[in-house]
């Protein structure tokens, strides 16, 4: 992120903050949407997080750390939003698929649905690590920094998340193999 922009926004320049929002919002929205698996809820969370970022910017002493600092506020906001909506787990919308047309058969769709279901069951802290690592492409040390946790904890959360998703994937494949065997 542009250091000068962050410093101007930190000193109260609303135009600079507007530019900052335009530059950062898509990334933050993408992270929130993937963690929460609900675009509508992600919009609300992003809105709250960006206003919090504006309020708290004067406390950011190192403008170069803006991205990690903003991720932490965003994940905080995700964490707050998820349990507040008690019907959240039951009403999440399945995200639209852009890559369905790439599939030659139904296998990837089946895998994806299984992974989607498994991902929704992950604790939020594991989702956050998984998304920051696999979607935002942050190395684990940067994920740990952004979330304010030791690197070992980030590694552990990523391990558990991956293990859960892989188990769901393997189970999906086994069911498909069984179905194909019966049909043959």
């Amino acid at each position: 992120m542009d250091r000068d922009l962050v410093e101007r926004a930190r000193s109260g320049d609303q135009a600079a903050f507007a530019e900052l929002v335009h530059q950062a919002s898509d990334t933050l929205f993408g992270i929130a949407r993937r963690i929460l698996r609900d675009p509508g809820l992600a919009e609300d969370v992003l809105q709250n997080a960006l206003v919090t970022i504006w309020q708290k910017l004067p406390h950011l002493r190192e403008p170069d750390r803006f991205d990690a600092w903003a991720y932490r506020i965003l994940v905080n906001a995700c964490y707050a939003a998820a349990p507040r909506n008690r019907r959240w787990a039951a009403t999440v919308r399945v995200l639209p698929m852009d890559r369905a047309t790439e599939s030659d058969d139904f296998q990837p769709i089946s895998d994806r649905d299984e992974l989607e279901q498994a991902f929704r069951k992950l604790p939020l802290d594991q989702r956050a690590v998984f998304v920051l690592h696999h979607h935002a492409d942050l190395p684990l040390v940067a994920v740990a920094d952004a979330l304010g946790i030791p690197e070992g904890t980030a590694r552990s959360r990523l391990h558990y998340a991956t293990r859960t998703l892989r188990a769901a994937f393997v189970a999906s494949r086994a069911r498909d193999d069984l179905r194909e065997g019966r049909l043959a």
Partner: protein
Amino acid sequence: MNDDLAFERATRDLMDEGSDRTPAATIDAVLLAVRTTPQERDLRIPWRTIRMSTPTRLLAATVLIAIVGVAAINLFGSPAGLGVASTPSPVSTPSAPPTTPSPPAASSAIDTATWVTYRSERYGFSIDHPANWEEIPADHDWSLAADADWMSPAHEAFLGMPGDDWASSGLRVSAWSFPVEPGTTVDGWLEAYCPTTSEACDRIDELTSRASMDGHLGSLISFPEDVQSFFLVDDRIYVVAAWQPGDRDVLEAFLSTMHLLPGGPVPVATASPPG
């Protein structure tokens, strides 16, 4: 395609799907809110980070009284019968401070009158929180090795909800305690803890100010990442933290409501082992 490649592709699809374009209405709402939302400024920090010794406080109080006295005489004129010798003397300070420093009151600008009390038998304290906040009880005893994590389930945690104009929704406040070896100091213990929670450990002195909890003096550290306080009482360290930067007022409000239980912590069965 083998299973590893297929799994990688499936997870990549899971992460790549959908559009990340922020709806224009969301950005408009944020920018509209920003126009009327003031930023938080640390106006009090320079004052609070100055550590004054008791003699310095005495001297400052005396000088202040002398200045006020001279100003009053200049303003209202000398009363009849009083000469120059009536200039207020430092000895006439109305109330001399006690010889031993007393803990500063854990006062707060945030009204805690309507807060509800949470009692932690596990950690041996009670603490109040806003009635609309969510309680997240600790599920095992805290340890530095396993739980140095701002979202640790070993914390007695409280989650901010919308509606408070003094705290952002989603703010997490945690409190916990743990025994230490006799002779351990907070500063000594912080040498091991600080690197797990902040990158500003080399500036910890300038970030630290005094705080009090239930009559006990401790340290409040305004890390760049969050605000945490530490109190050593009877070979046990009590920690209360607000996990967002700059939320010192919120932390002090919580501290002002905290009391140690007379019997100390009570062993509690652990629901699940720490992960």
